[in-house]
């Protein structure tokens, strides 16, 4: 079947985007953008590591009222977006309950934002893979 006009082929971008999710900066490494991939790996993994060292909480899907579901499912989704740092952390048994205190709260935000930054790197890998960017 012909590809619809203007839509890039799936095989052109699926690999780099999947790699960018699994390993922050991985999509850029695959596309031979070594420096940019290294910077992305440093920034996303650094953000995640700082979140762990501040004992931030990793979200889990929790049912309840709308706000609780939005918060927990959203947090879980963005934690998941970090890729291998998240999988490695949960595999090694990190399980920090939510604690009162500004530093723990910052840690939770760092963990979520690492995932958000990795989504940006996935979008960038996509744009490079389909030729929208160099």
């Amino acid at each position, binding site marked *: 079947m012909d590809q619809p006009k203007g839509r890039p082929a799936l095989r052109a971008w699926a690999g780099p985007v999947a790699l960018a999710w699994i390993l922050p900066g991985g999509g850029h490494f695959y596309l031979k953008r070594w420096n940019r991939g290294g910077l992305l790996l440093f920034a996303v993994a*650094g953000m995640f590591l*700082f979140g762990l060292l501040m004992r931030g909480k990793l979200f889990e899907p929790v049912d309840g009222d709308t706000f609780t579901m939005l918060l927990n499912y959203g947090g879980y989704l963005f934690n998941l977006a970090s890729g291998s740092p998240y999988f490695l952390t949960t595999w090694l048994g990190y399980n920090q309950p939510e604690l009162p205190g500004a530093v723990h709260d910052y840690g939770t935000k760092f963990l979520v934002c690492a995932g958000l930054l990795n989504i940006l790197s996935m979008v960038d890998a996509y744009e490079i893979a389909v030729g929208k*960017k160099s």
Partner: protein
Amino acid sequence: MYWNLTHFEASFFFALFAAIVFGVVSRRTDRDRLYYGLYVFACFLVATFGLGWLMYFGHG
């Protein structure tokens, strides 16, 4: 191991990591990426100090 960062240290490192990613993904040339990353980092720090002073005066 537990890092008990101050508010400023936490916002500094947050700004650093976010600015790197924004700089890398946002522009077309390395020079523009560097300038944009520095610009974003500066904006984060200005916002940190600005909001800090705002809260200080707002608190009364």
